[in-house]
């Protein structure tokens, strides 16, 4: 039965993927000699600007042709999941976002172990924590090469702080914001003087605090440890919400976007490098009003991806050679200059040109330098495949505290119940 099932699934997939399968034929039809022509299917999501780098690589390697397939992030992961699950239709190289990595690690036997293709030689290029996220717990299986990362900083509105009588320069503000206690006190001042909340979304405040912990929701044995690890962060956020110091907007909603333009709050703690583009997109007129500085008590990381080689690829060697080149410090610096992807290779952080990058929109702050400092201080964290479930439920609890004036303790208990119920089913 099972064989029949997988055969049928494979058949269905083959039918639906007819459009993208011609590369396999080309690749296999010329399989002789060392200069064999190789075509690599490459699935990515988001704005990577990788085509430029691919052109460059193809010029130096005339026998390699890389077919870039760009899509929306969820679609790409769903397509990859389906093809891996069915055992047919996966590309030679697939980009996987960090939040999805653990899920795909469950199927690690469907991916090449990059250690067997010399991944160890490249380890020194990358940030330790980022490299570790791409492997299994004991490091024997390297599933992906790191691409960009999302180190976080604190974005703030100069105009709001000014009307609250607070310092607006990055260094002066940073000096006054050493602890979360300071953050709370400053929030009180902002509320008193301007009537505005310190921050808009409960999620960003909670994330910023959570990301400073060395363990988040699960330990490496996949046991739920939220009571010990993030309950304090939850309590802190809930208290801020109850005192009106944190607003109630959810991320990515239209009202969240328009609040950025209006300056209806003072700060966005825990905003990653790629959030700069989001702010600019939502508030094109607010250039010079935004600035950024360090988060009290240390930075976190939000987002970033890995490049993996599914087992279906017939050319793992060429694929690994290419992704090693694409994630090298030189290539990552190009991606940063081109599309703002923040490099995961600390070598780049010493580069003079890189460090000199400033952003007029963010009041001329040396953005690359600030995020590079943040990236170095990120703690490696084991996420676990059920990270998204826990995250969603805690966020629901915080939203209920914010919008329904619910009791934080009761909401926490209910969230824990929901989490345990969902995890218990797998």
């Amino acid at each position, binding site marked *: 039965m099972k064989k029949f099932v997988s055969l049928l699934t494979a058949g269905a997939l083959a039918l639906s993927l007819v459009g993208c399968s011609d590369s396999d034929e080309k690749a296999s039809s010329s399989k002789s000699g060392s200069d064999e022509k190789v075509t690599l299917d490459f699935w990515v999501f988001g704005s990577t600007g990788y085509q430029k780098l691919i052109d460059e690589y193809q010029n130096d390697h005339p026998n390699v042709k890389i077919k870039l397939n760009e899509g929306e992030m969820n679609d790409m992961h769903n397509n990859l999941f389906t093809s891996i*699950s069915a055992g047919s239709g996966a590309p030679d190289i697939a980009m996987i976002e960090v939040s999805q990595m653990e899920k795909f690690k469950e*199927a690690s036997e469907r991916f090449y172990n990059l250690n067997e293709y010399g991944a160890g030689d490249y380890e020194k290029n990358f940030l330790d924590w980022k490299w570790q996220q791409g492997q299994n717990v004991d490091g024997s299986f390297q599933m992906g090469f790191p691409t960009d990362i999302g180190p976080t900083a604190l974005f703030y509105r100069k105009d709001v702080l000014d009307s609250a009588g607070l310092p607006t320069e990055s260094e002066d503000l940073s000096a006054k914001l050493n602890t979360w206690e300071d953050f709370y006190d400053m929030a009180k001042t902002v509320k008193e003087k301007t009537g505005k909340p310190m921050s808009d979304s409960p999620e960003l405040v909670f994330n910023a605090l959570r990301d400073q912990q060395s363990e988040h929701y699960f330990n490496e044995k996949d046991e739920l440890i939220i009571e010990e690890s993030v309950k304090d962060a939850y309590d802190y956020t809930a208290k801020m919400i109850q005192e009106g110091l944190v607003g*109630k907007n959810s991320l990515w*909603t*239209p009202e969240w976007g328009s609040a950025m333009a209006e300056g209806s709050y003072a700060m966005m703690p825990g905003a990653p490098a790629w959030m700069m583009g989001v702010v600019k997109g939502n508030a094109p007129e607010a250039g010079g009003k935004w600035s950024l500085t360090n988060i009290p008590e240390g930075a976190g990381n939000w987002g970033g991806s890995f490049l993996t080689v599914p087992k279906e690829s017939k050319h793992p060697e060429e694929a690994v050679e290419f992704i090693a080149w694409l994630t090298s410090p030189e290539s990552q610096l190009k991606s940063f200059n081109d599309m703002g992807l923040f490099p995961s290779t600390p070598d780049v952080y010493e580069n003079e040109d890189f460090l000199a990058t400033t952003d007029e929109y963010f009041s001329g702050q040396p953005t690359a330098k600030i995020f590079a400092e943040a990236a170095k201080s990120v703690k490696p964290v084991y996420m676990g*495949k059920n990270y998204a479930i826990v995250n*969603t439920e805690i966020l629901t609890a915080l939203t209920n505290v914010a919008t329904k004036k619910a009791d934080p303790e009761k909401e926490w208990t209910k969230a824990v119940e929901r989490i345990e*119920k969902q995890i218990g*089913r797998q």
Partner: protein
Amino acid sequence: MPDVNSEKAPLNKKPFSTKRSFSEKKKEALAGYLYISPFFILFAIFGLFPILFSFYLGFHRWNGFGEMEYVGFKNFSLILSDPLFWKSLSNTIIMWILGTLPQLLIGIILAYALNATIIKFKSIFRVSVFMPYVTSTVAVAIVFGIMFNDQPFGLFNIIIGWFGVDPINWSTSDWGLKIAISTMVFWRWVGYNTIIYLAGLQAIPGELYEAATIDGATTRQKIQYITIPMLKPIIILTVFTSTIGALQLFTEPLIMVGRTYREEGLTVVLYLYREAFNNMAFGTASATAIILFLIIIVLSSINVFIANRIGK
């Protein structure tokens, strides 16, 4: 391939050789089956197989990658003992009532108006009534999402403000979210039902009304004794399709509550989707699909029962 002679042969030999003509018939039948086979092959792959596979999965535990493990009826008891499933079912039924009933009632009224002789520019009205159905659900959901903005300056919050009601946090309020989703469903489907009713109304022979007029029937009597009974099959059709459609409500709530999966707007299909693609529990997701299938059968049977009594 048959040779040339064999094609002519049956004509002459027919009275004597029934065997020969039988095999000819067989060939013809085979050709016929071949012509219609693409549908059945595609249906078997994309329709029948997923249905059977879903039944198979309902009794297994599977995360999409690894080995399947037979668990018997455990998935069903997990689902049926989950308060969230019952919440999603009650949500679905409430939204069905909120969205579908007014949709059918107003659909009939609109169809009656569009069918009336006094209205000018009928085709323009007909097209505009049908417009929402053609619009992409995702686009509709996004536009409605903006109108049901949580802030006091959101369109619907301004409107209820005129009546002295405080702004509602639509995205988290239990009734607010259901009303928002039902409004969207209503807006999108009312035109579709109107057009079906209109077709039904136009099929009623004008002589019946003329005869009734001569007999001195009032408008109310004409509606009660001619229109409604003659429209009965159409009403049954629309009740059926919108019941099944409403029980499978998915896109609108997904866009409204998508990332958060908040229980206030969770429908059964969204619950199923969350199980499968968020929680990687394909077994319980399939069990949910089977339970929903049974619920649809039960509700459809109740519909048949009630429909048979209309106009009796």
